[in-house]
């Protein structure tokens, strides 16, 4: 049982690290787009639209089967997640339009701590937030700030 939990956590870690790498790669592509073609907000909107078309095409059979049986609560939660993420991206770009990156980056970098706070409030029966997770997340956020200012 314990081994299974460990294995699941390490698979999760692998997926999370790959996601972080892909987001970094996407930042490089985004830099090329905003240098040569469009403003960040337009780039973001169209990237999401094309991402939706591609993801919807690849996962079409699963989505069409599951979506019919999905409860209203699930639709609402997933829809809210998408809206929250879109507000995150839009807020980030709009903030950069009105103030400097040295102000915006450190504030946005604390988002894992907001996730932890919200998870401890709203996911009580679903996931456990330990002191070690909080300590680790704070160290990651400080590290991210160091990397951000170092580059």
């Amino acid at each position, binding site marked *: 049982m314990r081994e299974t939990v460990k294995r699941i956590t390490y698979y999760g870690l692998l997926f999370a690290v790959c996601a972080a790498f892909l987001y970094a790669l996407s930042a490089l*592509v985004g830099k090329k787009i905003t240098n040569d073609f469009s403003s960040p907000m337009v780039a973001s909107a169209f990237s999401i639209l094309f991402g939706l078309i591609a993801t919807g095409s690849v996962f079409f059979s699963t989505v069409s089967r599951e979506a019919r049986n999905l409860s209203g609560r699930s639709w609402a939660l997933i829809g809210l997640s998408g809206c929250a993420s879109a507000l995150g991206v839009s807020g980030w770009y709009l903030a950069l339009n009105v*103030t400097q990156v040295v102000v915006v980056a450190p504030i946005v970098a604390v988002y894992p701590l907001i996730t932890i706070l919200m998870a401890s409030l709203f996911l009580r029966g679903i996931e456990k937030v330990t002191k070690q997770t909080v300590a680790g997340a704070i160290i990651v956020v400080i590290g991210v700030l160091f990397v951000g200012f170092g580059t």
Partner: protein
Amino acid sequence: MITGILLSLMAALGFGLSAVFIKASMSSVSVKTATVISLISSSAVTMVIALSLHYEEILSLAPMAFIWFLLAGLITFLGGRFLNFHAISLMGASKASAVVSSTPLFAAILAVLFLGETIGFMLGAGTLMIVVGITLVVVQE
């Protein structure tokens, strides 16, 4: 300045809440379906904002731009968001967010490898902290 700070807080809150909402929905839906449905609402919100603020610019986009948008969409959403949601379903929102937030480290590594940037003290110390932080988050009894 205050507007910028408020918008930055909105961004942090948006990123933070997104993971929590997804984790709350995971018991009844697969990662594939969650990714697609979340992209529908994300797309609606960003398109409305982009059209209302940059309508003229959208009408004059070069055809080549759409190929780059497609590439960005494939990397960020078919790749990044799908794997991020997988990580959230396996590790939980709080742990997965801490690990995924290390994105600037990978951006810095790519910049060192492909753009010839050098590794300074801040980058080295930041990298060490991120590794220690992720280890603390992941390795728990």
